[in-house]
């Protein structure tokens, strides 16, 4: 099923509180879905915002929300039985390849869109997850695939950046004459995705990243979400290396609600309010 017109009102069927910052809302309703696609979540009387689908089975789907702004704090405070509106799914989603030589790089809540992708990729993937601290690690027991962790404070895995691990692995594969990655998938803060993209460019490896911009319509008319000449809600949110190479706004510029183009840092500060 798709709900790409008026919002369809659904009851929250279940809520999982992963930790003080993250909660997943589940809806018992089938929805057509490809990993990386998103829905618009309407809390009547409050606002409507995009969230990528983080759990999906034929009869149910879930979205994982990080409580960071006014809307998201309201969203994680919802309870089973509460009624919300859903539009979607929108966007393109990831291009899934069957090769075992792939890497997935998740930063913080960038894990949410990547999780359903990981479940469809070859389990031999190289899987990196970075977070502020151990407490912020999403879905600690969800995957069969082995995960390599990095944290800012070293409370889990290696202290440092996800790109450190990715670069080491790339070098290791080259030195040992192992097959290099056929694809790197990344989602997280844009500065992290840019670092992953740059690393992949240096090594001649293709990548796909999932971008975030302020959205209104979700279906490519209002222009709120443009990034260079790409429309994030319909051309994306997933973009390939080839597209990113031509997107000067990637990791540089984003539009505020007014449509004003500002440096990405200013945009991120506004989005966290």
């Amino acid at each position: 099923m798709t709900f790409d017109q008026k919002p369809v009102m659904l009851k929250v069927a279940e809520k999982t509180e992963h930790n003080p910052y993250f909660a997943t809302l589940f809806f018992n309703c089938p929805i057509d879905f490809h990993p990386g696609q998103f829905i618009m979540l309407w809390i009547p009387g409050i606002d409507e915002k995009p969230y990528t689908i983080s759990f999906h089975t034929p009869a149910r789907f879930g979205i994982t929300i990080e409580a960071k702004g006014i809307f998201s704090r309201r969203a994680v405070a919802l309870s089973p039985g509460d009624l919300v509106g859903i539009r979607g799914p929108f966007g393109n989603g990831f291009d899934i390849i069957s090769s075992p030589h792939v890497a997935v790089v998740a930063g913080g809540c960038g894990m949410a869109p990547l999780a359903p992708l990981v479940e469809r990729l070859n389990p031999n993937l190289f899987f990196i997850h970075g977070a502020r601290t151990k407490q912020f690690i999403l879905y600690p027991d969800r995957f069969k695939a082995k995960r390599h962790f990095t944290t800012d404070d070293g409370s889990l895995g290696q202290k440092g950046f996800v790109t450190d691990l990715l670069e080491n692995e790339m070098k290791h594969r080259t030195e040992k004459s192992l097959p290099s990655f056929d694809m790197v998938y990344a989602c997280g803060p844009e500065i992290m995705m840019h670092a992953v993209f740059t690393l992949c460019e240096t090594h001649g490896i293709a990548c796909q990243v999932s971008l975030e911009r302020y959205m209104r319509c979700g279906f490519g008319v209002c222009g709120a979400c443009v990034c260079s000449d790409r429309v994030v809600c319909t051309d994306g949110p997933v973009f390939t290396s080839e597209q990113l190479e031509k997107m000067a706004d990637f990791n540089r510029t984003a539009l505020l609600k007014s449509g004003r183009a500002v440096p990405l840092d200013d945009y991120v500060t506004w989005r966290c309010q």
Partner: protein
Amino acid sequence: MISFLGKKLQNPLVLASGILGNSADILARVHDAGCGLVTMKSIGPAPRDGHKNPTVIDMGGGMINAVGLPTPGYAHMDAEWQALANRKFPLNASIYGGSVEEFVRVARFVSDQGPDFIEINISCPNSDCHGMLFGVDEKSAFAVTSAVKKAIDVPLIAKLTPAAPDIGRIAKACEDAGADAICAINTAGPGMVIDIEAKMPVLAFKKGGLSGPMIKPIAVRCVYDIFAAVSIPVIGLGGITTGEDAVEMFMAGATLAGMGSAVRYRGIQVFDQVNQELNTWLAEHHTTRDAIIGTAHGSARADMGDRAGTTPFAAREDQKGTP
């Protein structure tokens, strides 16, 4: 290539204001996808966030929106203006204000940035105090149009609302005030969609303007009335999604055909597609766009004036500022 108010356009299709038009890059892409004239999102006098979401909802057969005129404000678009100064495509800059003075202030600044046309949005229903009131009253329409006309150096297009009790008279007032063309229509309504489970209007602003295929008959009627009332060219839009829709709009009296919501239904490539469909239809009927403009009015309107808009803008300079 066709000529419109003395400017060359690759074809007679126009991107409606408020659809994707908020950066130079995306405007260039829409042009490259086969759009003859791209219009910027309406630019206002001061920064404005617009309304909370939901702001744009598709209903199938059309959509309802109350985006609420978000704008960086004309003075906060330096990078955009710079990028647009080097553009390789014709540009229509849409502007709005809350008073004649504001319209003039924005228009003067925008005119200096060198767009090919300026369009005054005197027709937006989605804000409490901007635009629309000018579009439903002849005197106000005349006042704002003539004031802006005196302040700018490029052709002026007045964009009208179907909410006007007699849109032909508003168009005539704009023509008398010096408008070089009319653009019609802005969104219809306002309308409202209530979610019966949530028991409240879906749009955060509650009311919103209707667009897309469902409003086409209103748009066609408006363009028909305007054509009968004025002798300047008309940009017809409202619900156009196919080449045949464009033909219908030309027959009602439009010189150019605009599209907005169609981007939702057929993607950005809709411009190339509609252009091909239009050319196919014209070829099959052994006719041209010029020849069908206004034909729905019958032979009574033999006086076609300069409907194709081929008179160079310079030739109209004498009209400048004289109502």
